[in-house]
């Protein structure tokens, strides 16, 4: 009995120290989440306005076929970039992204596409290597906790160059899309070619705006900016989602540890009581035997 109480006491100690760790990680993730969320919020309006502008230009009836970014090609060479995190301990975050990435890959392959896979984040790299899915390029150190505009420029080059050079016909990104704290679905986004969107419908409604100096110059500048900003949003949203997932996972772990400590303490008390009872019985038994 004394043995059992000792074992339980040891376990309580170990669980409480685990709890301390998860609690700290929860708080760290919370702090990082606040920063990441702020970055998402601050860059949101800019991207929205860029999208509006794109729509407006689409609606003005300019012939966009001059720009290769819009070119819908018949070829079947696809580039898929799966963006995961460098670190784990964030619940299903990485697993969900990897699953979606694998699904997108399999679907394209089944459709006879020649798929080039690129993976961002240590966790994705490990998972795809384990599953034996070949990827051509991986990014680990380039994935930062606080994405900067330069990081976006880097990935802009990495992801658009193959398309612009005609090596691939479409570019997809798998990432975690931050919609709200309650909604962050893993998302498959078509980066290139750009599909001229909803603008079409309101084409006839209004008089097209003037363009200064010319629509061509504006699109020349707008397109790279639009793509870069889209990628920046992808990077910042991914970080926010990762931290959110980690905070949730760590909170759960902390709660579980807490519950375990409670249960173990109860068990420990029981074992201790049993031991005292037993000792008492022995003493009384011994005393009675003497009489």
């Amino acid at each position: 009995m004394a043995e059992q109480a000792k074992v339980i006491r040891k376990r309580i100690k170990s669980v409480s120290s685990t709890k301390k760790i998860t609690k700290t990680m929860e708080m760290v993730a919370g702090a990082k989440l606040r920063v990441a969320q702020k970055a998402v919020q601050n860059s949101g309006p800019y991207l929205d306005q860029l999208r509006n502008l794109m729509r407006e230009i689409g609606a003005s009836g300019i012939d966009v076929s001059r720009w290769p970014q819009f070119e819908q090609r018949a070829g079947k060479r696809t580039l898929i970039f799966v963006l995961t995190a460098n670190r784990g301990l964030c619940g299903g975050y990485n697993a969900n992204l990897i699953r979606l990435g694998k699904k997108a890959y399999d679907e394209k392959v089944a459709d006879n596409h020649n798929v080039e896979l690129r993976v961002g984040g240590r966790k994705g790299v490990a998972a795809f290597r384990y599953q034996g899915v070949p990827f051509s390029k991986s990014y680990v150190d380039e994935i930062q906790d606080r994405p900067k505009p330069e990081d976006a420029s880097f990935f802009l080059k990495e992801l658009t160059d193959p398309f612009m050079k005609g090596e691939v016909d479409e570019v997809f990104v798998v990432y975690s899309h931050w919609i709200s704290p309650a909604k962050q679905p893993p998302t498959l986004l078509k980066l290139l070619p750009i599909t001229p969107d909803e603008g079409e419908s309101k084409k006839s409604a209004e008089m097209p705006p003037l363009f200064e100096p010319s629509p061509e110059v504006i699109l020349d500048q707008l397109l790279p900016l639009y793509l870069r900003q889209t990628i920046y949003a992808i990077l910042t949203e991914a970080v926010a989602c990762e931290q959110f997932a980690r905070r949730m996972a760590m909170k759960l772990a902390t709660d579980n540890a807490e519950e375990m400590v409670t249960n173990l303490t109860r068990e420990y008390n029981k074992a201790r009581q049993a031991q005292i009872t037993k000792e008492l019985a022995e003493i009384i038994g011994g005393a009675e035997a003497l009489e």
Partner: protein
Amino acid sequence: MSLDVTVVSPARPVFEGSANKLVIQAMRGQMGVLPKHADIVAALGVGPLRITQADGSQLEFAVWGGFLKIGGSRVTVLVDQAVAKDEIVESEAQKDLTEVKAQLRHPKSDEEFQELLGKRKWAEVRLGLVGARATVSH
């Protein structure tokens, strides 16, 4: 009638409010915007942005690149970089200018040369706004 002005940069929303007048650096020279301006989309250069607010006070920013969009009374300015006049650190701009000018002597490529010209303008605009003169000779 006044203008509803929104200025946003990639890093953050810069300004939002109503204004009577706005002067901005378009690609081919400065451009003034008053209420009832025709709808327009314009590419921007490097230069000052002056917003005259409804109460007559003036706000000044140094802005770099981006677009101006006018639709009705709604004016949207998208900029790559923006810094308010109060936030300009003269010594920093001065330092940038000195560095850029040194680099301009030996540009490595045409693109870099263009980029450096932009940077020089950016430093000069910031200095111009705080009323300092460029102390480095050309």
